[in-house]
């Protein structure tokens, strides 16, 4: 072992443990996906604003549903992926940096879209219910979900050894996920101002008219594409930044080693 090589004691990941290919999808697929996402969103706008008829009771304001419901779906999807990735990280046989970074990337998307869901819901609630916000079970649990994963994202940014951070984050993500089914089922368990699920209701019988149902499904498909595209981009960024950080650390350690009078560095790692 040469003095220039930092001791590998598991506190650092090392560039070598990072995936060589920072992309989840091949470059070409990602480009095609990006354009299809845009097209799907444009089609959704077309159908959402003009194609679908206004609702008999709620009128035009109901069109916000075509964004609100898909955004909520995306948030559920993102947190589910985070939990699966966290579980795979914690399971010793599948432990890999990939899962940790994927969980983080997905959780960030989840937080962004939970926030968007709350915002869109508020914009829907004002004309339809008459209020911006109600402290009913669905809204409250969704707000709690937002803050749970906001906490998770701060936990990801803490200065600590990489292994410790990844493990703690994975456990935190799994604990936070408990709230996701609570959010979805809250409208069935409790009497809320928020309406019950239209499509994924307990009877599995969508109570929605043809073109409106089509537009809603279009929204779900479009937002799923948004999710896959953004997850690929965000994951790539996570790998690159992790790589950069490791290299900067390596450089700093090498510099310290060069400065040190003794060939064996002591306490270069935290």
């Amino acid at each position: 072992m040469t003095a220039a090589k930092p001791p590998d004691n598991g506190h650092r990941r090392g560039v070598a443990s990072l995936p060589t290919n920072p992309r989840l999808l091949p470059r070409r697929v990602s480009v095609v996906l990006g354009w299809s996402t845009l097209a799907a969103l444009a089609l959704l706008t077309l159908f959402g604003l003009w194609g679908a008829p206004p609702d008999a009771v709620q009128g035009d304001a109901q069109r916000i549903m075509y964004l609100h419901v898909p955004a909520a779906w995306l948030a559920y999807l993102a947190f589910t992926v985070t939990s699966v990735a966290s579980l795979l990280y914690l399971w010793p046989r599948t432990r890999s940096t990939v899962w940790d970074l994927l969980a983080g990337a997905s959780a960030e998307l989840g937080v962004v879209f939970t926030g968007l869901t709350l915002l869109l819901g508020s914009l829907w609630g004002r004309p339809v219910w008459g209020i911006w916000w109600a402290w009913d079970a669905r809204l409250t649990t969704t707000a709690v979900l937002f803050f749970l994963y906001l906490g998770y994202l701060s936990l990801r940014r803490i200065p600590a050894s990489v292994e410790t951070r990844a493990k703690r984050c994975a456990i935190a993500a799994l604990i936070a996920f408990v709230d996701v089914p609570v959010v979805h089922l809250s409208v069935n368990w409790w009497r809320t101002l928020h309406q019950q699920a239209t499509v994924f209701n307990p009877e599995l019988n969508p109570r929605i008219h043809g073109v409106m149902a089509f537009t809603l499904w279009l929204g779900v498909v479009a937002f799923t594409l948004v999710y896959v595209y953004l997850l690929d981009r965000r994951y790539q960024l996570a790998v690159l930044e992790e790589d950069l950080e490791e290299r900067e650390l390596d450089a700093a350690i090498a510099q310290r080693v060069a400065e040190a009078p003794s060939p064996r560095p002591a306490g270069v790692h935290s």
Partner: protein
Amino acid sequence: MSDVGYIAAAWSATAAVLAAYVVRVAVRTRHARRSLPDDDPRR
């Protein structure tokens, strides 16, 4: 505000959030790529 106003606000909010997120990720990715050495396979 009329229904149209709320719908316009909802659509532009969604567009703004998506665009801002894409741009932020793209800018950071570009920055990270530039800072990595040429021989890095991930570049």
